[in-house]
């Protein structure tokens, strides 16, 4: 167990590290755990909200039951979330087909110095490594390679797809049991 002196020292030290103080720092750290925003409910766009509401009304039928309508809204939202994750998957694969990589390669100081030296010696700027050039040229192989390179992200996205599918199935079950009452 910590002594009183140790506890006091811990408290003193903790006061020294309470995170950023400037508003810019706070803004930056507020996005520390942000990864892709796929779990966020994006019903803010009016067009999307309208489409979800239309689908929810269709699912709920001519009901006046607000609870049932709410379940229908959850199912409709999950349906659109599923489509969004699938859209992201397709966009990633297509980007990889074109560029061969998803991240812009970071140029280290070492590489910059090496490039500078090469330019001084030869007068020619050394070409950057083109990830797209490492992709196969024929279509089926190019797609296979793009999917292979996208695999870590596809595995992560699969989790979100499953989550949306579970929410939809749960909502449909709730709708069914509600209509049976």
């Amino acid at each position: 167990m910590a002594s009183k002196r140790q506890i006091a020292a811990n408290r003193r030290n903790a006061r020294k590290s309470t995170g950023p103080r400037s508003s810019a720092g706070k803004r930056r750290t507020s996005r520390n755990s942000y990864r892709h925003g796929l779990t966020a409910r994006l019903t803010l766009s009016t067009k999307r909200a309208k489409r979800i509401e239309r689908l929810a009304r269709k699912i709920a039928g001519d009901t006046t039951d607000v609870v049932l309508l709410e379940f229908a809204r959850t199912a409709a939202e999950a349906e659109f979330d599923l489509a969004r994750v699938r859209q992201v998957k397709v966009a990633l694969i297509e980007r990889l087909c074109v560029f061969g990589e998803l991240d812009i390669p970071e140029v280290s100081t070492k590489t910059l110095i090496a490039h500078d030296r090469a330019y001084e010696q030869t007068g020619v700027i050394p070409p950057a490594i083109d990830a797209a050039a490492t992709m196969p040229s024929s279509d089926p192989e190019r797609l296979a390679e793009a999917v292979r390179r996208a695999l870590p992200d596809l595995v992560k996205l699969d989790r979100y797809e499953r989550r949306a599918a579970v929410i939809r199935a749960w909502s449909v079950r709730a709708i069914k049991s509600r209509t049976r009452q």
Partner: protein
Amino acid sequence: MSKHRRAQSALLPASPLLITESGDEFDRMRDAFDEEIKPRGIIEQMYVADIAYLSWEILRLRRCKAGIINSAFRHAVDNLFAQVTGSPRGQAYIMEGMGQSLGRAWFSGPAAKKQVLEFFSDFQLDESAFEAEAIRSSAADLERIDRLLASLESRRNKALRCIADYRGGFARQLRESSNRIIDGKVLALEKPSSKKPSAVA
């Protein structure tokens, strides 16, 4: 697809496809599922669209799996060549000028392919050895694809079960409501007759 079903499908979000994929082919697959399952109502339509898309993704991944193995073939031939040339008999072939990439030669034409096979036959290696090496070298990626495939297949099966459950529930619900209607009618029919004796009394 009927007009009604088309109108219902319009409410659902579009299924995103790759630029290289054929929309017509996807529609044909979707129609085939529609024909087979004959969805009733928007919820069943939702599940059928899901099943069609999941099946499409399964096919896409299976094709990619084959593509990944094919792409690894060249390196597999080169790897085997490196292993073979490490042996004393292999050194002799290097001396004969066979040092160029056999992996590249494999894909350059049937004659070169035959030559590569003849070279490896001296070491009791054939095409199956290249395939095994290609699979071995891309095992990590293939495992990930298999995991994704398993997830897609399980979700497709779950969607099929959901339709069955929903239909079961729907049928039960129809039965119950029709029973209620029949009971109501029976009661309504019984009421005047039950009143009669009291009226008489």
